[in-house]
């Protein structure tokens, strides 16, 4: 999950005018995994979540430090198995037993 910096070429001639701006390239971790300690990845192996915009083989980024709020897609525990749920205000959720984490991003190869 890194966007690697191209290796810096030291020019032998005129110094690059961009040198002062070095270190500004983008790091996907910074954007997608702001809290690494509580962030986990899971793979979807079912087609039943199309209505959530989630396909089979998608990789989900899940942050356990976030609380479940209506409108969030969450990983929930149903009969001991992990499932996805678009949380509505009518859902009754036991934080201790039913809730695993909040899905924050979906990674899909096109």
């Amino acid at each position, binding site marked *: 999950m890194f966007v690697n910096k191209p290796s810096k070429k030291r020019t032998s001639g005129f110094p690059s005018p961009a040198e002062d701006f070095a270190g500004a390239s983008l790091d996907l971790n910074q954007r997608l995994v702001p*809290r690494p300690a509580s962030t986990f990845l*899971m*793979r*979807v192996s079912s087609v039943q979540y199309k209505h959530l915009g989630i396909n089979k083989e998608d990789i989900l980024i899940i942050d*356990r430090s976030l609380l479940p709020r209506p409108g969030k897609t969450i*990983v929930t525990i149903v009969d*001991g198995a*992990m499932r996805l749920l678009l949380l509505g205000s009518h859902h009754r959720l036991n934080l201790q037993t039913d809730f695993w984490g909040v899905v924050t991003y979906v990674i899909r190869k096109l």
Partner: protein
Amino acid sequence: MKIFALLDCNNFYASCERVFEPRLLSRPVVVLSNNDGCIIARSNEAKALGIKMGEPVFMCQHILDKHQVVKRSANFALYGDLSDRVMNVISEILGIPAVEVYSIDEAFLELGDSRFSSPAELNYLARDIQFQVERQVGIPVSIGIARTKVLAKVANKIAKTNRLGVFSLYSSQDLIEENLRIDSVLASFPVGDIWGVGYRYAKTLTANGIHTALDLKRANHAWIREKLKIHGARLQSELANMPCLELASPEDKLRKSISCSRSFGDRVSELSTLETALANFTASAAAKLRSQKLSTRELRVFLSSMERYDTLSTRLFQASSSSSVLIGLAHDLLHKIYQANYRYKKAGVIFSDLVLSDSLQLSFLKSPDTAALPEIHTLKKQQTISELVDQLNSKIGVNTISWAATLDTKDQSANSAERWRASKNHCSPAYTTDWRSLPNIS
């Protein structure tokens, strides 16, 4: 005055297994040692069935079967990753300098200061840490609080048995009142359960009528000093609520040695088989070195059979973490100690005198044994090759690439190196460290 805490993950390995397998939450779970031989962790449900810590599996097989206890082979890739996460969550709350990672599942914390925080406030902070770790990583923890590390450890044992999982021996701004309360706890705390009182000390102490922590605290100082030396004096002071231990800094904890060894299922007498086994152990220990950015300056090989134990070590002219260099040295040592007429039951390799690879100075002097010394650029190249192998193995999967010497020449299958790894018949996937093993949502 500083207030310390000891945070301990409850039944850590068993709890790790439950994070990605919630169906195990209400089931008894045990985790097995290398080769699936002994019980090394038990969930509370498994403890309640009477399964003992360290018990060989065959001794409790009937209980495991009868109660359909879930067995898992130790999955240290998973446990190591979740341990790091637990420590990071605590460090985010308290700050890195206030956390001493003591073991894979324990940390000493500097929770606060009695001048600024009341007992109630620190209790509340501990409850918050406990909640955050369980919420963010999925691991339940217990926290003991006190003015000394030894008492924090005592408090932790008590926290494990109470409902909240938090227990404090820092109970008052009034030390006299607090010490009375501590004494009432120490009076029923077995001396052998005190942190730093090993089996041998416990035997000496109980033989002399010292059975509880309170007995030890009140024992004659001169006698304790004579029997347990400075260590005993420190224990007495810490039990008396007078701190003499600080948090250890990371430099203090640089690992002293790294090793890899294994007992063979069948006795081994062939040299080529031992070569393959040692190459595997060395490659695995060298990968451990590199993952901690360490290099070794000493390598030891040992072989043991029923009749004898042989060992030999060598100093490295140039500290190294390169698998190919270290495998070569391990083979040299093996050839010197190997004797054809013995049937060996165990072999291993130990790296000691470890140094940080960053601080490693390449030597420009020639070794007296010039022939054995690779050129400097070769050394650097070997280091890079080893790092590349690690990267490939971590990106694509374990054993994508392995050292030729680790493969059995007679067994041409790709998995012949597997033979020298511990047997793990009930291992959960490396959920958090291998792209191919991510948890599944169905």
